[in-house]
């Protein structure tokens, strides 16, 4: 790389950054016939939804699938329900929203009348498994060791996860407890604000067991500071490191639990536009850029569209509602 080209790039980047600032600061008016689109993200930059949403946008822009450009907006608040409510009030055919299991949970907690399936479900993009984690010095060597102990003393063993009630890291241990015959209300669950604080709680032995997606913990797992007792999916994860961990089913627990993310459009858009948007996402799914993102982020390629996705959303929201009701939340 010659120094001239780096400088040019640098200057170009600078200009872009400035333009970006003004665009986000002032808002951009958009001509109606334009093909430009807006992707809403229901949490902060750097979070899970943000990574998935931006990867999808990047792949669509790289392949020029929509014929226009994308503007990405992070709408932070109330576990994603602020962004979701905004989508439900919109009739803009050019706006889509990244959602996931966490948004189902918080729309229950916030008592929203609308469910995710009431928008226009476009596609599920990915799936992510949860793992059961213990620190290296833990006496639990296998998932059976833990479950046996847990069944005896569900109310004295402190377990934790990186999400508040209704989020995936909370729903998973509750459903696991129920599957092995523990009353979910008895579980002593400690909510941490994300993967970072959860890691330090585990390494500092503040809690016995942690529940979370494994991506954030790769370093600690590789180094042997944290041990994975089981993963929650139908099949084992891929990769040298992660494929060693047994699924719950292999270990004799009848539970499959997955975290997932997908894309919604506003309710009431035309059938034609819905099909068009789904076609964009299908094309995006086939692109090499997307496949690369799946690999880099260790996301499981679980893609379903339209009615199939809608049925899935219905099933998910019933399941979340049941769990939360059972807990009295």
């Amino acid at each position, binding site marked *: *790389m010659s*120094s001239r080209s*780096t400088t040019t*790039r*640098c200057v170009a*980047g*600078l200009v*872009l*950054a400035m333009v*970006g*600032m003004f665009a*986000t*600061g002032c808002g951009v008016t958009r001509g109606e016939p334009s093909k430009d689109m807006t992707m809403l993200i229901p949490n*902060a*930059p*750097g979070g899970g939804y943000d990574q998935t949403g931006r990867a999808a946008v990047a792949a669509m822009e790289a392949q020029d699938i929509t014929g226009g450009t994308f503007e990405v*907006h*992070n*709408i*932070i*608040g*109330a*576990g994603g*329900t*602020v962004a979701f*409510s905004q989508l439900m009030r919109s009739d803009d055919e050019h706006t889509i929203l990244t959602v996931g299991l966490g948004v189902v*949970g*918080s729309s229950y*907690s*916030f008592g*929203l009348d609308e469910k995710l399936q009431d928008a226009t479900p476009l596609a599920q993009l990915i799936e992510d498994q949860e793992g059961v984690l213990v620190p290296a010095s833990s006496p639990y060597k296998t998932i059976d060791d833990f479950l046996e102990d847990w069944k005896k003393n569900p*109310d*004295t063993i*402190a377990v934790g996860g990186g999400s*508040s*009630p*209704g*989020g995936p890291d*909370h729903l998973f241990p509750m459903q696991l407890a129920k599957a092995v015959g523990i009353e979910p209300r008895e579980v*002593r*669950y*400690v*909510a*941490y*604000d994300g993967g*970072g*604080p959860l*890691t*330090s*709680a585990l*390494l*500092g032995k*503040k*809690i016995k067991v942690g529940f979370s997606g494994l991506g954030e913990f*790769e*370093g*600690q797992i590789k*180094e042997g*500071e944290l041990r994975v007792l089981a993963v929650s999916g139908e099949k084992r994860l891929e990769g040298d490191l992660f494929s060693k961990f047994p699924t719950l089913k292999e270990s004799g627990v009848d539970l499959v639990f997955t975290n997932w993310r997908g894309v919604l459009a506003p309710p009431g858009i035309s059938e034609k536009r819905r099909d068009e948007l789904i076609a964009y996402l299908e094309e995006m799914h086939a692109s090499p850029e997307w496949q690369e993102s799946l690999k880099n982020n260790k996301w499981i390629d679980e893609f379903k569209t339209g009615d199939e996705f809608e049925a899935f959303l219905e099933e998910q929201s019933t399941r979340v509602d049941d769990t939360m009701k059972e807990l009295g*939340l």
Partner: protein
Amino acid sequence: MDSLGLLADGLGAALTPENLMYAAIGVLLGTFVGVLPGIGPAMAVALLLPVTFGLEPTQAFIMFAGIYYGGMYGGSTTSILLNTPGESSSVMTAIEGNKMAKKGRAAQALATAAIGSFIAGTIGTLLVVFFAPILADVAVTIGAPSFFAIIVFAMVLVTSLLGDSRLRGFISLFLGLTFGLVGMDLNTGQPRLAFGRPELGNPLDIVIVAVGIFALGEALWVAAHLRRKPLEIIPVGQPWMGKDDWGRSWKPWLRGTAIGFPFGAIPAGGAETPTFLSYILERKLAKKTDEFGQGAIEGVAGPEAANNASAAGTFVPLLAMGIPVTATSAVMLAALTSYGIQPGPQLMTDQSDLVWTLLASLLIGNALLLVLNLPLAPLWAKLLAIPRPYLYSGILFFASLGAYAASQRAFDIFLLLVFGLVGFMMRRFALPVLPLIIGVILGPLMETRFREALAISGGDLDALWSENLAIVLYVLAVLVIVVPMLMKRLRPSSGDDVPGGPGGTSDDGSDAVETTDDEKELVQR
């Protein structure tokens, strides 16, 4: 120790004219973006990250370090000049810094902030270099009970900041604690004080509260009095720090560093608590206590150093354990991974050359910040020479822009206006502003830690003193209350030099309200 040799290699790799240019660009960009209120270092780094793509790792790191330090310094600049902190950790800087600026000492405030940041950042980075692996092991053992004890300790110290009227002080503190309750309850997922608005489902952004109460409240207050009172002219003052300023600054710099670094190194320690502790400490130690609240340079030097040392400290959990503990370090983590650094326990051994380059880059970025910004301080200070009506309308504009830019919600502007009104009313009724801000910052931290400790123990209160550090802190808190009382007993004729414990009032009721004269005048009407 061969760490020093490795660091020298890192510096050697990083110090080329071309790289220095990237560092300079990074510092300038970071400062300009950080100057916008509402845009703290996390946002600045996230916004400008794309600029570093396409560069080689070394250059990218250097530019990145420049952006990072520039963004932090930019936030302090607005705190001092316009009373609009860009992030929660520079809220404490605004309290004395803006008072200094109003007295024509903006250049000194900016300079002590810049030099303090530099010293704290450098010492902090060197501490990371030598002690990261050791500290990391100790840091994780500090759990919720100890943290709760730290905040209890801080709360005990707060009582000395309540001002002349205890009643008004407590009203303000409890208002702050109430605002701190807004948002989703982490343990049950239920919204609190949200009034059915999903926008209130997250905790209030401290920056919006602070900017509303400090900047908007003051702008409204000034506007309400413009016709009655001639404007005071802000004196221009000396452009550089005098001998006296140096003498009063260097100790707070070092003390701030000592307080800030450990908080950064503790996972989830944060930068707010140390800036606050440093402020109280300086206030207690200051010889001219009456100057506090009226623009004491110690109150800028200490918190700024604490803020930067804490930021350097966050590299301990980040590099040694791969744990991002603040929003800024989460963005950093994303940035590091995009350059092929996989943070985690193995990082220091596996990719040591990259780590050393990064640490060396931080030192260079920090040094360049000082070189570029110190001469600019008198220029920035001239900003205040703008006629007041224009200055305050400018502040209103930038405050609203910042509130909106942070998450692009119109609702945040509404919140800003509400807090502006609260700030106005507080000035009207002479409620001190500082306890409210402290309530908003410390309340939620205290609650989270308290409930985490109890959630782990299943509601058993013994858990609160289950850690040695916690016990030590409770003992200290008791001593802080008891010793001044005993001293008073022993020396009944004690003069003004006894530090004001909770029992005594050595403070002059000074706080972020500077309009006490107006107030009296108003009351007389």
